[in-house]
Structure formats: C-alpha cells, structure tokens
C-alpha cells in the first residue's frame, strides 16, 4: 500500500463513521417525532371526548327550555334558545369530525365490508342535507347510477365520504346554486365505481388541488375567512377512500365550480 492509499482509507473510515453517526441521529429524531405525534393524537382524542360531555349537557338543557318543558317562551326567547341548541350542535359536529380524523389516521382503523346499494346511500345523504341546502335554495340532484351493481365496501365510511363532499359543496356554493352527484362504472371490466360530486361554487385554483386534501388546510385560513370549520373534511374523505384502495381528486375552474371525484373497487379485493 502506498502512503497516499493508506491516507485515503483512513479518511474513508472516518467519513464512514461520521455517516453512521449521522444516520443514528436521524433514526433517533424520527423515533422522537413518532412518539410526539402519537401523544398529539392521543391528546386530540381525549380533548375531543372531554369537550363533548359538557356540550351535551348544554344542548340538553337548552332543548328542555326550547320545548317549553319549564314554561312557555315568547318567540324572541325561543329564537335565542334555539341559537344555543344550533350553535352547540355545530360544535358537536366539529368535535366529531376531529374524532373521526384521529380514528381514521390511526393504525387501528379497519374496514367492515358489506354489499350495498350506493344509490341508496347517496339518496340518504341527500335527504340528510335537505334542510341545509333548502336554506340556501340549492338544488341537489343525483344523476344516473340506477344500473350500478351493489358495491362491496364499508357502508358507513363511504357514507361519511359522500357526506363530507356534499357538505363541502353546500358550504361553498352561493345561494341558488346547483350540486349534483354522478355515479358511473369505469375501469377495463367496469369493476370500479366512479363518484362525482359537482357544484357551481367559486372553484379552486389549480395550485390548491392538493392542498385542499391536506389536514387542517383551508385555501383561505385567515381569521376573517367567510367559511369556518376544522379543515378536516376532505382530509378524512381522502383517508377513507384510500383505505378502500381508491383515489380522490378534484377538477375545477375558478368562478365556475368544482367537481370532486373518487373511485372505489366494486368487488371484494383479491387477496
């Protein structure tokens, strides 16, 4: 070995040792971040549960008053008490959304697959949203879908996805607008269900197509933004669709509206 070669191998060994030390440090940081993330998840879950309990009591008390069980209310009093019930219910819905997110993000979540009619689920979600959409004079219609065979999937979770997409469309579409749900089969053997939820809302800029599916992300996150919420609805929808090995995405034109799409396999997965 020449002197130069000897020096090179010493230098190489030193470099290798330094790299190994760096890798070890990186592993430690990753472990630390993972355990902090788990703590944060646990905190979110606990705090959501603890917030729910007193809110449930507030809503029940307010309902008792609103129903006149403790004496008649005049119209102004009833309006005010109704405000407490509605505000409380809105808070409960947001807390539930956080709980659903925490659950869908954890490793514990699993799918309970059964065969069911997707058109029935769409019609149910439509019905659940009727009061909200009527308040904004929005029309919601289901287009096609009567020829879709039963879907083999987790009914509650797909209902949640549809609820979030339709709820989002109602929230962002201005008064008098239109929302539609389109169902189709696609894929080579028609073995995939494609669901489209479209609206005539403000639309989403192409730069934000990915952002809207990220947790806690809102295109306008300023305190003065016109639409409030947890910013979790679409992140949850994405997680639930991906659990089914499906895909979710958005296509949109600013000022004209948005079309959200998701796919799920129609048939049981082949193991």
């Amino acid at each position, binding site marked *: 070995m020449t002197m130069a070669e000897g020096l090179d191998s010493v230098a190489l060994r030193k470099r290798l040792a330094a790299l190994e030390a760096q890798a070890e440090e990186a592993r430690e940081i990753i472990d630390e971040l993972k355990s902090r993330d788990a703590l944060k998840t646990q905190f979110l879950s606990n705090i959501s*549960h603890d917030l*729910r*309990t*007193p*809110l*449930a*009591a507030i*809503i*029940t*008390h307010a*309902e*008792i008053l609103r*129903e006149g*069980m*403790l004496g008649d209310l005049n119209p102004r009093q009833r309006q005010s008490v109704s405000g407490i019930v509605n505000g*409380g219910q809105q808070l*409960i819905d947001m807390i*539930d959304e956080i*709980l659903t997110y925490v659950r869908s993000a954890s490793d514990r979540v699993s799918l*309970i697959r059964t065969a069911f009619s997707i058109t029935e689920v769409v019609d149910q979600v439509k019905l659940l949203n009727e009061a909200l959409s009527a308040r904004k004079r929005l029309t919601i219609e289901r287009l096609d879908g009567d020829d879709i065979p039963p879907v083999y999937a987790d009914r*509650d979770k797909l209902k949640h996805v549809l609820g979030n997409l339709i709820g989002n469309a109602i929230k962002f579409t201005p008064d008098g607008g239109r929302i539609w749900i389109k169902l189709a089969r696609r894929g080579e053997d028609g073995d995939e269900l494609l669901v489209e939820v479209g609206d005539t809302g403000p639309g989403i800029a192409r730069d934000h197509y990915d952002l809207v599916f990220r947790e806690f992300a809102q295109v306008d996150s300023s305190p003065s933004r016109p639409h409030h919420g947890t910013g979790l609805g679409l992140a949850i929808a994405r997680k639930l669709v991906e659990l089914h090995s499906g895909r979710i995405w958005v296509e949109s034109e600013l000022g004209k509206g948005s079309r959200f799409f998701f796919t799920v396999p129609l048939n049981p997965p082949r193991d």
Partner: protein
Amino acid sequence: MAERILIVEDSTLVTDALAVLFEEAGYTVHSARTVADAVDLGRDRHFDLMLLDLTLPDGSGLDVLDALRRDKKLPRVTLAVTGHTDDDVRRDCLAAGCADVLVKPVPIRDLLRQIERLLA
C-alpha cells in the same frame, strides 16, 4: 306510581340535564356515577329503565349489566349511551341486552318518545 329511571353517568353536568328532563316528563329519577354505585342502587330497588353510559371511572357500563343480571335485578329496559359509537360498540351493547345504543346528546323529543314506547 311514577316509573323509575336510573341514570348511570359519570358527568354530573349530563346527569343534571337528564334529571330535569325526566322529572318534567313525570318520571322518578335516581343517579349513579360509578359501576359500583349503579350496582348497589340496582340491587337495592327496581328500575323500569336504566340509561347507561359506557365509560365510567371504575369500569365499563356493561359491567353494571353483568352484575345485575347475575343477581336477577336487571331493570326492565336498558338504553346504552355513548359519546361515539361504531359497529363494534353497538354489537356488544345489543348482545349484552341493551334495547338500543344512543349517541350523546340524544335529541330530547326522540329520547322521550323512545322511552315511552319501550315502557308501554
């Protein structure tokens, strides 16, 4: 005689609200905060309906049902209440003998109607 309801719930805020509701609706109301208290009360007297929270400081609400069943002191009807339900929880509760599983806060009109029907 007024029908008797036992509220098993660890939050006194929730118990107080439900007590107002049931008393106004004409029922006699008792309450327990823990599995141990609920089992003691259930052994002591007969209840027509038990509203059973599933998460209690000293165990699961379903433990109350097990203990009272052993002593043949089950209320006529038990309704489970929980903050968050999924299919597993529902199945366990129905298997344990609950008539239904409700999510807090239960809209009061629905709750009163359901209780009236179950006790008819």
